[in-house]
């Protein structure tokens, strides 16, 4: 079995075709007739432009506008007057068309690769792609016609270039495997748009996999199963059919508002961990961001990010989400993470220790930097700030007074910010849940973090296999706390959401509907299934279940009851 990153979900079963790229060979000539070489280059570029114009049009129609744009970009890159004049300069020196063309491409490949920015680095791949294509035309070599591969083909390549991906006939190709690529590369974007299972970053795939070999591409886990048994084939064929049926059923919910069957509208947001995830949230039709974790900014580095760097990251998400709400959580980190510059010491019980808002309020300068970046970013969208691990209202007061002070300073300096910036509490400790009535008087909103709330309430570390069986959001104490938080929020007339795994749990959803949860925040890939789940309940049906369940005395009976009533 081989392993990589599943970037476009699904299952594919088929026979391998390895695309060997191999450098295109040509004879490098000098002292050429520049008139002849100019004409050769112009003719080749003309063919390139014609071919790709047709391809871009086809892609726009069959896959999407964005995908067509990638190829349009290739055309423009070769139409660039600067690029043309550089190539002509070399040709005028007597260098052959291939050589002149390749030199200029290589200059840009080097330039793009050396920019300290992932997106620009990826443009180098585009130029490599164009280079191979034009050199193929110039040298008259033959490229594999990807649109004519046999039905049931799994394509294997070192790297899938956009033009390769664009030529793929999706009726015949059932899966993609590459050695290079990430979930943000063009190949991944195109594969997702074509709904084709793709596993990238599979080390040595082009050598380990042989032409004609039968493989199973499991893009859910990133696994490639070689030599599958008949039984495995049967299992995965069924999985594939189930997955396709499920996806079709979910696609009906794209673009629909999230409402219960009897028309109660709720908000359905996504949880994200990096600015790049915002696009994924939008792709899955999230109506906002219910939890943007800021930890990524602080990890894997030697000093804390400055205000500007943080500001840019927050702003990026706000701009991407346009007027949709984005709830950003302040730093939630403690002794379980090794971040040398933060001066955290190893603790006996890091989850009961010096972390999150406790650390931040004790490192004012550090925290002030984050709050300043957040207040500045608030000008660029619909933003809210959420404070984690609150156990008392004084913590919320302190954060709010710091924010007020920053706002006063900004007003004096004429720095724009959102004067109505909302500051809410992440309810993830039993303490916060029990004093929800007190917190609700001063918080602008609540968001229930079911994962930690469950762990702290039941005093269970779910990573500890001896006690993990106790960990369940369906335990009566957890359900009571959730209900209390929602009802106190309603009394105080503030919105209440949930950003833990519970918000996407089909068994918890009827209870949340009955309690009156306003906002559900789930992983991007669960947005549509959660919307479907919510649409299947009426308030009346949900109330009936909640009434019954809340009277039950043990977790096991709650789950039994819900299984019976929910799965009917």
């Amino acid at each position, binding site marked *: 079995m081989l392993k990589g990153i599943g970037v476009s979900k699904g299952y594919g079963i088929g026979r391998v075709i390895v695309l060997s790229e191999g450098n295109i060979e040509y004879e490098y000539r000098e002292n050429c007739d520049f008139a002849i070489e100019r004409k050769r280059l112009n003719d080749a570029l003309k063919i390139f432009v014609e071919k790709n114009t047709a391809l871009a049009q086809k892609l726009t129609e069959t896959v999407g506008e964005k995908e067509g744009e990638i190829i349009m*970009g290739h055309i423009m890159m070769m139409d660039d007057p*600067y*690029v043309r004049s550089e190539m002509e300069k070399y040709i005028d020196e007597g260098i052959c068309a291939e050589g002149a063309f390749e030199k200029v491409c290589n200059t840009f490949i080097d330039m793009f690769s050396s*920019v300290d920015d992932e997106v620009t680095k990826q443009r180098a791949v585009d130029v490599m792609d164009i280079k191979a294509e034009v050199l193929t035309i110039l040298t008259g070599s033959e490229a594999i016609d990807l649109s004519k591969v046999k039905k049931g083909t799994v394509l294997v390549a070192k790297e899938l270039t956009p033009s390769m991906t664009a030529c793929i006939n999706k009726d015949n190709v059932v899966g993609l495997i590459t050695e290079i690529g990430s979930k943000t590369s063009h190949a991944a974007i195109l594969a997702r748009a074509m709904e084709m299972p793709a596993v990238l970053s599979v080390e040595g795939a082009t050598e380990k996999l042989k032409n004609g070999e039968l493989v199973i591409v499991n893009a859910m886990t990133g696994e490639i199963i070689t030599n599958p048994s008949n039984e495995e084939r049967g299992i995965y064929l069924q999985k594939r059919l189930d997955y396709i049926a499920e996806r079709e059923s979910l696609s009906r919910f794209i673009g629909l508002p999230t409402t219960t069957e009897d028309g109660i509208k709720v908000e359905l947001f996504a949880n994200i961990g990096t600015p790049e995830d915002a696009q994924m949230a939008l792709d899955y039709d999230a109506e906002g961001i219910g939890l943007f974790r800021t930890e990524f900014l602080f990890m894997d580095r030697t000093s804390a990010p400055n205000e*500007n760097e943080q500001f*840019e990251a927050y702003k990026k998400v706000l701009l991407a989400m346009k007027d949709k709400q984005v709830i950003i959580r302040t730093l939630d980190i403690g002794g379980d993470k090794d971040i040398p510059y933060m001066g955290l010491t190893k603790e006996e019980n890091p989850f009961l220790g010096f972390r999150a808002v406790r650390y931040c309020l004790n490192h004012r300068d550090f925290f002030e930097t984050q709050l300043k970046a957040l207040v500045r970013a608030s000008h660029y969208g619909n933003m809210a700030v959420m404070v984690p691990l609150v156990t008392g209202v004084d913590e919320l007061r302190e954060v709010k007074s710091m924010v007020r002070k920053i706002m006063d300073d900004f007003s004096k300096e004429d720095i724009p910010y959102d004067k109505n910036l909302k500051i809410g509490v992440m309810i993830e400790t039993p303490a916060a849940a029990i004093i929800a009535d007190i917190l609700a008087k001063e918080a602008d909103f609540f968001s229930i973090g079911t994962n930690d709330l469950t762990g702290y309430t039941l005093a269970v570390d779910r990573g500890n296999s001896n006690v993990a069986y106790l960990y369940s959001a369906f335990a009566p104490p957890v359900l009571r706390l959730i209900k209390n938080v929602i009802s106190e929020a309603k009394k105080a007339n503030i919105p209440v959401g949930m950003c833990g795994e519970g918000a996407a749990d089909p068994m918890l959803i009827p209870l949340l509907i009955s309690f009156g949860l306003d906002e559900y925040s789930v992983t991007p890939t669960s947005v549509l299934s959660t919307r479907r789940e919510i649409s299947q309940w009426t308030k009346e049906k949900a109330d009936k279940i909640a009434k019954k369940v809340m009277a039950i005395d043990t977790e096991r009976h709650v789950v039994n009851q819900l299984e019976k009533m929910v799965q009917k």
Partner: protein
Amino acid sequence: MVSKKMTVVNSQGFHMRPAMTFSNAMAKYPCHVIIKYKGIETDGKSIMNIIASGIKCGSEIEIICDGERENEALKEAAEMIESGFGE
């Protein structure tokens, strides 16, 4: 010669799509179009050089137009950048 300083506001900075839109729009003007960023001058009609400049969201840049129809070119350039390329 006319010029204007501005901030890049679109989230992606000067990446593929904005670079396409910008260089395409500038190509129709006979004047020179220069994007000045961190002291380096980039040809505003060259998509490749724009991408290579790695201008990110939030960057302070200066657009310089010099030659025939320079005022028109600068006006269109500023509109595009300040509106975030319609993002």
